[in-house]
């Protein structure tokens, strides 16, 4: 298994896109931080707004991770390399798990880079006070809570993208679905919560659980989803697992 994980890392590390994406993400963070320093009165550029979303690099973390996970299985079929992975002493389950582990590690690593850059920029350029308390929570605690919710939402989106890329045999549909999921969370959540208000049972649909990050940091979202925080956390993890299992079942059945 260790060998398989190393091989997946090797492939990921040798794709130009991996490094370009990280470069673009950090460049956007630096750009937003610099703009925040130059124009401190612009509401969208204030550190209280930008640090919580990693100077807008946080959005890119999930996009980059989705693009990677969507291609991790589909590229092996596209390049005809799946046979080479599977004829060795390893089993399909091991090959699949190695890809999942590397995709999760990649996601965590991207977020770690975004967080480190955020802390560095907040200290260096914006003089942001992480210990200052707003609405009963320190800025650092709010950031941590937001991060935890973002990771839960991200894992669910990644498992959904993996499932779609494996079932539909293409990474394009999976990437689009990931973006749509992110769009639902960021923009269309008000439509979703309105539908839940009208039809209670709709609260169990997977899109509701994508709002876990928002609910953990905002009390108002709880009343809109009609679900408690523990239920939201457990639900998002269960959907992540279900999507992952469907992806594995599809991967097992794929003919070589």
């Amino acid at each position, binding site marked *: 298994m260790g060998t398989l994980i190393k091989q997946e890392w*090797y*492939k990921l590390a*040798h794709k130009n896109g991996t490094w370009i994406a990280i470069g673009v993400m950090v460049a956007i963070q630096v750009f937003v931080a610099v703009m925040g320093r130059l124009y401190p009165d612009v509401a969208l550029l204030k550190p209280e707004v930008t640090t919580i979303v990693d100077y807008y690099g946080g959005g890119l973390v999930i996009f980059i991770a989705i693009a990677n996970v969507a291609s991790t299985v589909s590229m092996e079929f596209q390049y*005809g*390399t799946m*046979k080479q992975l599977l*004829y*060795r002493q390893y089993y399909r389950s091991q090959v699949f798990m190695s890809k999942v582990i590397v995709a999760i590690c990649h996601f965590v690593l991207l977020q770690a880079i975004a967080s480190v850059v955020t802390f560095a920029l907040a200290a260096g350029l914006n003089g942001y006070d992480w210990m200052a308390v707003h609405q009963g929570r320190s800025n650092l605690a709010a950031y941590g809570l937001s991060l935890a919710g973002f990771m839960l939402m991200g894992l669910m989106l990644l498992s959904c993208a993996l499932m779609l890329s494996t079932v539909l045999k293409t990474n394009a549909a999976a990437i689009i679905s990931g973006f749509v999921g992110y769009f639902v969370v960021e923009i269309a959540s008000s439509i979703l919560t309105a539908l839940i208000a009208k039809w209670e049972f709709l609260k169990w649909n997977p899109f509701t659980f994508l709002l876990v990050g928002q609910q953990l940091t905002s009390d108002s979202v709880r009343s809109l989803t009609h679900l408690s925080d523990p239920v939201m956390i457990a639900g998002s993890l269960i959907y992540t697992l279900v999507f992952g299992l469907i992806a594995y079942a599809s991967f097992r059945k794929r003919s*070589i």
Partner: protein
Amino acid sequence: MSTILTVDHLDKSFSGRQVLHGVDFFVEEGHVAGLVGPNGAGKSTIMKAILGLIPIDGGGIEIAGQPVSITSHQALRKVGALIEYPGIYPFLTGRQHLELFAAKHHQADNIKHIVDALGMGKYIDTKARLYSLGMKQKLGIAQALVNQPKLVILDEPMNGLDPQAVKDLRDIIRDMAAAGTSFLISSHILSELEKVADDVLILNHGHIVRNTSMGQLAESGGVTYQIVPDNLAQAKAALTLANVTFTLEGAGIVLHENAEDTALNAALYALVQQGVAIRSVDRKARDLEASFLAMVQAEKGEA
């Protein structure tokens, strides 16, 4: 000498259509077995089954005494393969492909050895997306051989290779076989396959219709001799007088000799007795291509 690969009464169907019918054969250590058959005969299916890539309906496969199936892969630790076409990551160089799949033990030496043997030095550090068909094929072969496996499965390995590369591959196969590696190779280039194969398996419609050594294959078809005399008319007269059966092919006389026959001796004696000068005598055994074509012709005749 022990058996490295045993295929025992292998059955396989796709969507209700049976493509392998009790396929039965073995490959000995250090032997090169050629698997030949028309398109759709089931060659790639056998190879995929041996590599545990597809489930089988009946029978069994063992590599070095260990069973292989879609859920049992331990025996594949010492197996290298190239099936159908080489799988290539366009964003990696050739060397990176080999580093990716080569075992850590003696990795650099093993990579250098196979790169040199296949003459890939000039482009091994170039991204594989820029490779030609032949370069990709060599890289696929290199990946199959880099870990010095005990058993190698090669499906149409000569595809896209130039004559020099075909000769290099032939030399590598013979060297590795001499060192104890076994090969199962399918190829449509029968003239090349017979230069490296020790044994031959002829597959048709999912049945092994012939399983023999190359030597026995040549013997079973008999031997032909072509004699080119100085004077064809004198030679014909001499052979007719001595009651030797022959046919004519261009400026030469062709004798067909079975195991018990002494046609060559009788012909040479008659020619020398009559003072006919002989320019050359060539011996030709029945080759793999002739055997394969004879099987296909017989099949057409039965149909």
